[in-house]
């Protein structure tokens, strides 16, 4: 984990032109992943519309410079927008990104899927090693915990998603509830697409220009109608999205009064995203009619985003607590080789002594032999229990390089002759791709096959 790095840029550091230039996918992404992995052993590229980030594992500063050059190869001026994090800071950054705490729209759900896709792409390219394969699933868990333990993603964060939420509050499921689009603007289309994702399946489009109505209806698998049919269509629709460029209201109070009478009071949700407004405000007083104009929708969005901001502090605490847990596990993992080496050394000594003494005791039965061997093992275990527990506890509780855990570990190394075994184990921990050391002593024989990953 200490060798993890991230180099990248995002909507916070770079303008859209730079982000567009670095955006990458498909075969180009696979090529870049392999190039980066050749420099730093492991690589993962997260490329979305709001960020480009390259995660990897490196111990050499020169490799980082080369990675930067690789990232900026398409756009040299991207260098000045890059941020760099290493070790714990890189892990924290990944957790925050996956949990949508670094997103342009705080708490938006897409980023987690994008991180998962980036991980899959790196796996396909074969550039995922022990660090990333252990770290990414943990990042997914952190993101999931943030979403379930906080309300950061519960409220709608855009005008379109607020419109969907409103329709849900009035009608529940939208299947079978016709949506009428008055005007064929981009925003109305966006809202309609959101409604379709929320199971709306009937779209009626009216527009002054019939051709545009037909085009939009085609895209939404709906039907285009003549503007003169507006009043009869209002009688059928459950949700009405207005976005015309008219200077005067298109839906007037008298018309809606007639419509509601014909509808026999069935609920009608009116969403007016046009400026100037398409719907007379007095219509909102009609019974079973719910009118939201762009200001009302925007006010809900603003409130929701404020709510998300409040939830973000709770989410940040979750990220920090997960990071601390990860660090504690990492430190525990750091002392495992020493513990194993000590245990194997002590058991080796005990077995050697038993082997030396047994012939002198004359002919013994199988039961007596086992008893003597068990006695030796028991003495070893009891003697080592206290020191090993202290080393483990110190590792779990300590933080920082000059910790009590490191002191205890060093003391163990000095008190028992574990140096050669320990050196080999250390080098194996630092280089995850290196082959396991060939065991030459009992300590090494015990430790080598049980080597654990850096994040275990």
């Amino acid at each position, binding site marked *: 984990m200490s060798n993890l790095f991230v180099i990248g840029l995002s909507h916070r550091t770079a303008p859209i032109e730079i982000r567009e230039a670095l955006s990458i996918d498909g075969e180009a992404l696979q090529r870049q992943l392999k190039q980066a992995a050749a420099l730093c052993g492991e690589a993962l590229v997260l490329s979305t519309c709001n960020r480009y980030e390259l995660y990897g594992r490196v111990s050499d500063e020169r490799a980082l410079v080369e990675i930067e050059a690789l990232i900026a190869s398409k756009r040299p001026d991207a260098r000045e927008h890059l941020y760099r994090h290493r070790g714990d800071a890189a892990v924290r950054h990944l957790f925050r990104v996956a949990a949508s705490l670094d997103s342009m729209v705080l708490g938006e759900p897409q980023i987690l899927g994008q991180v998962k896709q980036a991980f899959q792409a790196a796996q396909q390219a074969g550039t995922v090693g022990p660090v990333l394969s252990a770290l990414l699933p943990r990042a997914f868990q952190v993101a999931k915990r943030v979403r379930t333990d906080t309300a950061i993603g519960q409220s709608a964060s855009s005008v379109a998603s607020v419109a969907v939420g409103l329709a849900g509050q*009035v009608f529940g499921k939208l299947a079978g509830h016709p949506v009428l689009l008055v005007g064929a603007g981009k925003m109305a289309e966006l809202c309609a697409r959101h409604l379709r994702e929320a199971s709306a399946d009937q779209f009626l489009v009216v527009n002054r220009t019939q051709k545009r109505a037909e085009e939009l209806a085609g895209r939404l698998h709906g039907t285009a109608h003549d503007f003169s049919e507006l009043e009869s269509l209002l009688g059928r629709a459950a949700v009405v999205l207005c976005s015309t460029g008219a200077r005067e209201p298109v839906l007037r109070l008298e018309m809606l009064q007639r419509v509601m009478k014909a509808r026999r009071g069935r609920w009608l949700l009116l969403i007016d995203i046009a400026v100037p407004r398409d719907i007379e405000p007095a219509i909102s007083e009609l019974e079973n009619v719910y009118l939201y104009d762009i200001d009302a929708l925007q006010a809900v969005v603003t409130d929701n985003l404020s709510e998300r901001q409040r939830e973000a502090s709770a989410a940040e605490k979750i990220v920090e607590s997960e990071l601390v847990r990860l660090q504690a596990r990492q430190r525990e993992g750091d002392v495992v080789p020493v513990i194993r080496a000590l245990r194997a050394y002590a058991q080796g000594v005990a077995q050697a002594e038993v082997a030396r003494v047994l012939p002198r005791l004359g002919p013994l039965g199988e039961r007596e032999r086992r008893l003597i061997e068990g006695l030796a093992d028991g003495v070893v275990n009891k003697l080592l229990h206290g020191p090993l527990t202290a080393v483990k506890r110190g590792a779990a509780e300590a933080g920082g390089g000059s910790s009590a855990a490191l002191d205890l570990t060093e003391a163990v190394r000095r008190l028992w002759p574990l140096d050669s075994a320990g050196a080999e184990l250390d080098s194996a921990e630092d280089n995850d791709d290196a082959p396991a050391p060939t065991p030459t002593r009992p300590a090494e024989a015990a430790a080598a096959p049980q080597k654990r990953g850096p994040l275990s």
Partner: protein
Amino acid sequence: MSTPPLFPLTLALYAVACTLYFVAVAQPALGWPSRAARPALVLGFLTQAADIAWLCLHGQHPGASAREAIFFLAWLLAGALPLVTFRYPTPLLGALLLPLAMVLDIVARVVPVHELHSLRGPPPGHSFALLSAHIFSATLGTALFGVAAAASVVYLLAERRLKRKLLVPKGGARPSLETLDAWNRQSIAFGFLAFTVAVITGTWWLLLPGSRSPGAGGGPASTGLADVVLFLFSKAQYSLSIATWLLYAALLVARLVAGLRGRRAAAVTLSGFLAALSVLVAYLLRDVRGPLP
């Protein structure tokens, strides 16, 4: 004899569920209070079911007195909650119906009433069956009207939020206005059926010569329609029952014919439930005072 053995436990379980529903209403973002309330509610429902069985074994079945009918009504209201909110966890519904059920439970157990059977002995066979059917159907109808009323309150609050463009409360799936209105409509339709049976059986029972206790005011002066009607409507409980029945009948007709729905339907439903409760109160007062002289 009057307090069944598990009554304190039932009340405690309802109180726990009720508190959790209040927490869920106050903190909509928290999902666990609503989830935790359900097992407490179901346990309370089961312990009350055991109490009702115990009361039946001791001759105090729901048809025995207004008090037992009220106790039964509280049990029906509590039991309706998990059924109605199976798809949509609606803590507000729990926060409305459970306190009502608890109040009815307490009223049923603490108000001293003259138990009909102990005062007069059970009425003759067919009359007894008629009375039991009347009380059971009236209680069932009132419980369903109670569910409709609670759904109406939830509707009115949700509708008010939408009209005022207030921030949408957080939390899981909520019933839409359309769903709440459908709960209202269905509860009233079935409640009206049960209440109609109650009115018919109640009228029949009142006109049975053997059903009236000695000194309880006798029957109609003659078998003429005017005298019968005068006799029936001279009883406050009967007049209130008919007024309640007419109110719900008008509501159903308006829903079917004129398409009445939403806020107005919810308001009428609430008025109807108050009328239904007043019928119960009238019966309870009668039992508290004892048989009419």
